């Protein structure tokens, strides 16, 4: 295990200065995620346009560096994508964090891939995986308009 793998500069930077923070205007979807272990919470606000494209995506909440950075990076990568591609990116991300060494998506450019891969260090820290994935599950929940809040204890 190596702390530098986990806390890469890009993560620390996003953790300190998250992008797309706040409530976006006229959001069409929203969802709440919660980690009962530490009390951390995240709300995502999603604005889909008529073509089912992510016009805006923002978040609010409190959390550790991993969780804030992961959420921030997620908003950056998903913004502008179609819902279909967004969902694929989420699947890819969760797969990468759990199993595979790489990110498969063809819809991300190299720069975006570097960003997302900066979170791969979390794999070595099983108790922190939930910090990294909470926002992504919460985004799924927003897209699908699920009624219940996301709870890290009921996700893998």
């Amino acid at each position: 295990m190596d702390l530098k793998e986990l806390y890469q500069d890009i993560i620390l930077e996003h953790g300190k200065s998250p992008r797309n923070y706040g409530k976006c205007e006229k959001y069409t979807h929203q969802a709440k995620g919660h980690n009962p272990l530490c009390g951390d919470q995240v709300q995502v606000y999603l604005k889909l346009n008529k073509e089912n494209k992510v016009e805006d995506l923002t978040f609010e909440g409190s959390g550790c560096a991993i969780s804030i950075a992961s959420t921030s990076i997620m908003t950056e990568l998903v913004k502008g994508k179609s819902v279909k591609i967004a969902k694929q990116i989420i699947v890819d991300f969760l797969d990468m964090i759990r199993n595979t060494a790489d990110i498969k998506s063809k819809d991300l450019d190299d720069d975006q891939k570097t960003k997302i891969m900066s979170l791969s260090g979390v794999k070595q820290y099983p108790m922190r995986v939930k910090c990294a994935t909470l926002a992504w599950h919460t985004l799924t929940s927003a897209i699908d308009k699920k009624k219940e809040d996301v709870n890290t204890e009921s996700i893998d």
Partner: protein
Amino acid sequence: MDINLIKSQFPIFSKKVNGKFLTYLDSSNSSQKPLSVLKALDYFYKNEFSNIGRSIHSLAVNATNKFEETRMSVKKFINANSKDEIIFTKNATEAINLVASSFGQKYIKEGDEILVTDLEHHSNYVPWHYLREAKGAIIKFAPINDDGDIIIEKFKELISPRTKIIAITHLSNVTGTIVPIKEIVEIARKKNVPVLVDGCQSAPHIKIDVKDLDCDFYAISCHKVYGPTGVGILYAKKKWLEELPPYIGGGGMISEVKKNKVSYAPLPGKFEAGTMPTAEVVAFNESIKFMNSIGINNIVKHEAELTGYALEKLKKINSVNIVGNPKNKAGVISFTIKGIHPHDISTIVDEDGVAIRAGHHCCQVLHERLNLTATARASIGVYNTKEDIDVLCKAIENCRKVFGSK
């Protein structure tokens, strides 16, 4: 299956009690523990101890993983659908109380009926009695015949439109009756009544497949399954665990806590409040491995052979009377000796290093049904041998000598 190899895995059998090696025939009460379980317990405490679930340091992560590994093993052991259906309790009694309390709170009203049987252990009666007291529910007792078998026709008749739950043992801790749970559940299904099975005696001795049985709840005591004391298991179908209100409340079972409201954790956490018997659950994984290493079919075969041998030998002893003669009988043999009270039997055979139990075995209703106040009980574990039975029979002869019986 090499019985000597199995016996040698239990440290206690290499020790002397009262100057004699132990002839342990009280496994229905609690089983002895194999070395692998004790080693795992000791190792965990000495090298890896931490509370689980709460802290995120390495020790806690490792402990949590090991704890959850046991949950997975239990899931496989009883063939549950999901690990979320496995709740750790302190013993089977708590598991049954959990269901009686949570289910009763939500579904039982005045005049509703709870169907139990004459065979039940106090732990599968008193929790339901609470609902009788608190809610005005009615408890009905399905009768047994003189052999100790549930009379299925009568059982059927006792299910009424007001029957809200059936609570029934899988294996009697007095007569050794193996109850046809699958048949019972089929009957109950038709009338849409959920079934709780008290699996305390069955879990260590017969194959448990909750999917095949299709029961709603199944209670197990780990200390009877070659595991440490302080741990029990409640299996319940997921839909029940989702529907039922939580039982014990406190740390670990919550989601969000505010001054004016509380919400509960997802399964299985919702039913596991406070610090668990962490080390004991971790070590219990080795008990399951121990059972699996022998194979349940071999266990059943060995114990059936031994039971047959014991019954044959005991019946030959003048004035010994075996309690019950069920169609399917496991290695639980209760008996009386004419003119000698079970307490006296137990004290006298104890002098020869033989540990059996005397009393009502927490089944007073059954003893009343059988017109007995107490019985002596020899109960078999996987480590027992024909020699153990021989020693028991000799010791019984000695009782008769002490009491001057012919």
